Each structure stands twice: as structure tokens, then as C-alpha cells.
């Protein structure tokens, strides 16, 4: 394919010149582009399912919402549930903990968020977060009775020493973000649906 302007070279005389001889465009050029495009499209069409098969399958996605009954959680207590195969912390804050969380100067935080932004309206005492440290994914301590709650009374990740406060916001240590608040809603006064 050293020479694509066949019309100009006398030794390719057998080449049928159908049209467009002057601008150098041959019918073969069209066939060439059309064939490569079709093959390229086919290649992408084959690649798509090969890549997509690695995404979460239907049964994994089917488990992607969880109902949690929060009626039995007393102030100061927390429970661990499982959401998308990962731990979920549901914590009923005491009045003191709420006051502590609201007393913080928001602009001093690494990931500035108020407690109100991290809870649902009318349920400011119920803090729902993932139990997954935003540093490298360990499970922080502090949800179960007697565990180390860290310097700020919330959660403490033992892997690399991240401290979270009573609103589960990052206060000290290597984690870049607050503990993630998943999407959830109150389906009744005592039941939340996560996901």
C-alpha cells in the first residue's frame, strides 16, 4: 500500500478507474474504509461484553439494598449490619454527642460537613454510616460495647490510626474523608432501607 494514488502510477494500469480519477479517490479506498470500520465496530461489539462481564452480576446487585430495624437501639448504642457485604454502623447519638458534633468549627474539618447534612431531618440522633475506613478500607472500632472510640469519641481505625468524631467525621490520621453515609430512607418510623 505504498502508493494509494493509483491513477498517477502508470504500472498499475489494470486498476479499474471507475470515478474520481482527478482527486485521487478510488472505489477501493471506499471499500477499504468501509471494511476496516465494520471490523472495528465488530471488535468493539465483542469487547463490550468481555469488559462488562466483570461488573457486579445481577445477584450481587440484587443484594444491594438492606432493611434495618432501628427501634431497639438506645442512645449511646450502635449496631453493626451488613450492606453490600460490608459492615454498616447504625448509631443512636446521645444529646451530649450531638452537642459535641455541632460545637465543631466546620471550616476546620478535612472533609467539612455538619451533623445535619449527615443525618435525616427529624432523626438527627440516628447516624448511619459505612463501617469502612476511607483510608484503605479497614473496619473501624467503636460500634461495639467497650471498643476504642478514638480521641473524638466516635470511631477509631486500628490499621493506620484514623480518628473519627461523634458524627463519624475524620478528625485525625491518614483517612481523607468522613465515614461514608450511604443512601437510605426511613420506610417507617423505626425501619430504614439502605441502598
Amino acid at each position, binding site marked *: 500500500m505504498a502508493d494509494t494514488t493509483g491513477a498517477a502510477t502508470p504500472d498499475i494500469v489494470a486498476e479499474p478507474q471507475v470515478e474520481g480519477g482527478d482527486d485521487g479517490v478510488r472505489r477501493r479506498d471506499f471499500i477499504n474504509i468501509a471494511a476496516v470500520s465494520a471490523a472495528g465496530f465488530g471488535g468493539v461489539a465483542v469487547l463490550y461484553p468481555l469488559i462488562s462481564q466483570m*461488573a457486579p*452480576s445481577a445477584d*450481587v446487585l440484587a443484594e444491594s439494598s438492606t432493611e434495618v430495624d432501628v427501634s431497639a437501639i438506645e442512645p449511646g448504642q450502635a449496631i453493626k449490619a451488613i450492606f453490600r*457485604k460490608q459492615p454498616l454502623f447504625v448509631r443512636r447519638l446521645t444529646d451530649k454527642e450531638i452537642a459535641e458534633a455541632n460545637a465543631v468549627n466546620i471550616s476546620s474539618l478535612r472533609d467539612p460537613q455538619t451533623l445535619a447534612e449527615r443525618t435525616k431531618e427529624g432523626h438527627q440522633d440516628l447516624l448511619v454510616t459505612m463501617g469502612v475506613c476511607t*483510608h*484503605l*478500607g479497614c*473496619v473501624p472500632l467503636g460500634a461495639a460495647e467497650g471498643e476504642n472510640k478514638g480521641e473524638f469519641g466516635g470511631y477509631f481505625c486500628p490499621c493506620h490510626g484514623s480518628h473519627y468524631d461523634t458524627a463519624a467525621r475524620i478528625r485525625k490520621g491518614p483517612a481523607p474523608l468522613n465515614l461514608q453515609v450511604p443512601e437510605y430512607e426511613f420506610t417507617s418510623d423505626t425501619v430504614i432501607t439502605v441502598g
Partner: protein
Amino acid sequence: MSFPWAKEYTPANPVMKFLDEKLPLPRLVYNAVGAGYPVPRNLNYMWNFGVLAGFFLVLQIVTGVVLAMHYAADATVAFGKVEHIMRDVNWGWLMRYSHANGASFFFIVIYLHIFRGFYYSSYKAPREMVWLLGVVIFLLMMATAFMGYVLPWGQMSFWGAKVITGLFGAIPVVGEPLQVWLLGGFAPDDAALNRFFSLHFLLPFVIAGVVILHIWALHIPGSSNPTGVEVKGESDTVPFHPYYTAKDGFGLGVVLVLFAVMLFFLPNYLGHPDNYIEANPLSTPAHIVPEWYFWPFYAILRAFTFDFILPAKLWGVLAMFAAILMWFFLPWLDRSPVRSGHYRPLFRKFFWFGLIPVMAVLFYCGGAPAEEPYVMLSQIATAYYFLHFLVILPLVSSFEKPEPLPYSITEAVLGSDKKAVLGENTTPAT
């Protein structure tokens, strides 16, 4: 492809003659690792590790295929299957311990092989492609070893998989979807375990393919040697077989003795007790560490604890990958015309008193808990590591006065006897 004095393959009998005409495979082997490959006569034992790495690749493939016959990649049974191999399968314990310790020995010999490359600058022209393919092999090995460690589905398997795939989550915008795509879920589970098993089985064969390219690329200029002076004549070389098959065979024997010591007396020394606890997504081990061969790079990952434009976590991830990807540029970063560190006094100082201690510090800190003084030590060592490759190595040749090189390999071996010099003695003494 080889020196003009290389011995030519002659089929010994009609069957081999037939084969040589139809499919010259014996000829290929003869020219690659037989008497048909002339090799510098002065190679020291640092030149054993390529063959040793090849041996451990074969060992890993053989034991791995056997283990796969008794294993099942299902999160509910995987942990039990490994115990089944250890207790019930005939010689299963031998296969699994060989495979686990074989991985460690594979990395030991590879690190010594890379060390040889660093000290003698084996990466320099005309062997750049050999080096680049070697770095590719190393990256493939790391991926393979990581996925293999997930398969027993113990606590370290699970949390290692979570932390390492979590690294991809640090990439801005696409990070989280990418992590979910890699795992096939929101946390490591069946989907992740199955794909890791599939890829862990596949990648060693990919490595074997790249190893063939690595050897092919090596055989175009021929092997380097401790003087760094290129081969000038026939008296500088000896045939690979029997000279280096014997030398490599001896080295293999020594390494196999050490391997047997680990295998039979300390089979779990390099592992983690936590991995004999089944994976539990709700409880993190107190101290997550990767396998020992990842420690230097894990230390670099954890050395970044402060945000600077980008978040600290992303810096750590970028630095960890850069620490190895940088090696791809090594042939052009090191600008000294002299290859061997043996003749480079200034480079040698930076190598022995800079790079090597710093690698040792990174290695130690990577296995230590993330607390002081290890964090600060890792930070200093990480800074020096990058300084060595990006600043010291490119600049050192401008200030250095290399020691005089021998005229030829023969002269280096026999002294500057006139008869030893090229042209006066081109036929090897018999």
C-alpha cells in the same frame, strides 16, 4: 543473532536430521542454551539467577497446576479446600508448601537478578529491550503473586485484596467504579475470588511467553559480563554448554538446599498466622501487611501522610507505581558510558552506601506497623530512592572519573599477556 564462531548444530542421527528439516526445535534449543551459544568466559555467580528464576517459574507452574486440581474458587469452600489439600490430599502439604515457598524463592532470585542489573548496568545499550521485558516480567509476577495470595481466602487474603483494590479507589473520578469493576462487587467476594483464580492460572503462562522474548532479546547482543567490556573475539567466550550449564547447575544445587531447609523446617516462616483464620468481612486484623516481597513498595505507599494539592492517599498510590515504572527509563537515566559498577568509583559509593541501605530501610519499614519512627524513616528513604534514580544516577557520570577498563574480557581474566589479546590467539586453547 550470534557470534560468527558459534558452533553449528549438527543432527546426530537420521531422526534428529528429519526433525531438523521439518521443525528445527533442537537447533533452537542448541543455539539458545546449548553449545551453540557463546557466552563471556568471565561470568561470576551473579549471572546464575536468570536460570534460577526460570527454574522457579517452572516449579510454580507445575505445583500450581497440581494444586488447582484440588482447589475450588468459591468463597464458601475455598478456605476449607486449602486445609483439604494440607490434610487429605496425598502429598498435598508438599505441593502447597512448595508453591508458597517457591513464590518467595522466585522473588529472592528475581531481586538478586535485578540487583545484578543495577550494579553492572546490564540495562544499558545494546540490552535495553532485555531490561524493559524484564521489568514487564517483574510487574506480571507481582500481579500473579498478589492474586495467588488471595486464593486461600484467609484474613490476610481478604484484607490484602481489599486494601490493594482500594488503591484503585484513590484515582479521582473513575476510582470507585473501577474498584467495583475489578472486584465484581462492593467488597471482595465470590466474583473477585473466581477472577483472581482465573488470572492467577493464566498469568504464569504469559510470564513464560515474555521470558522467551526476554531470552530472545538477550541473544541478539549476547550476555553481558562483570567487566562490562563487550566480547571482541572468540577467546573472550566459552560455549554455554557445558561451561555454564555446569555452573548454573551448581548454583541450582545450592539454592535447592536452602529451599529444602525452608520447605521442610520453616514452611510458614514467610507467611502470616492470620491467614489461617478464615476471611471475615466484619473484622479487620490488627496489623495488615502484604507478603515480604512487597514490603519496600508498601512502605512507599504508606510514606505519604500529608495532603499536597492531591490527597495523601493518591500520592502514595502514584509513588508506589512510579517506584517501579521508573525502571523503564533506567537505560536513559544512567548516562555513564561505562557499564560495570566495578569501574565506577562514585557510582559504587552511591550504590552501596545510598541505594542498598535505603532499600533495606524501606523493606524493614514496609513490614513494620504504621507508627513512628517507621513512618518518618519510610519518608526519608522514599525521598532518597527517587533522588537516586532521578537525580544522582543521571548526574553522577558528569563528576565521575571511571577507573581504566581492561582491553578485553580475555585480558581481564588472564592479564595483559600479549598472547591473550585479540588477534594473536583467536583459537581457544584445547
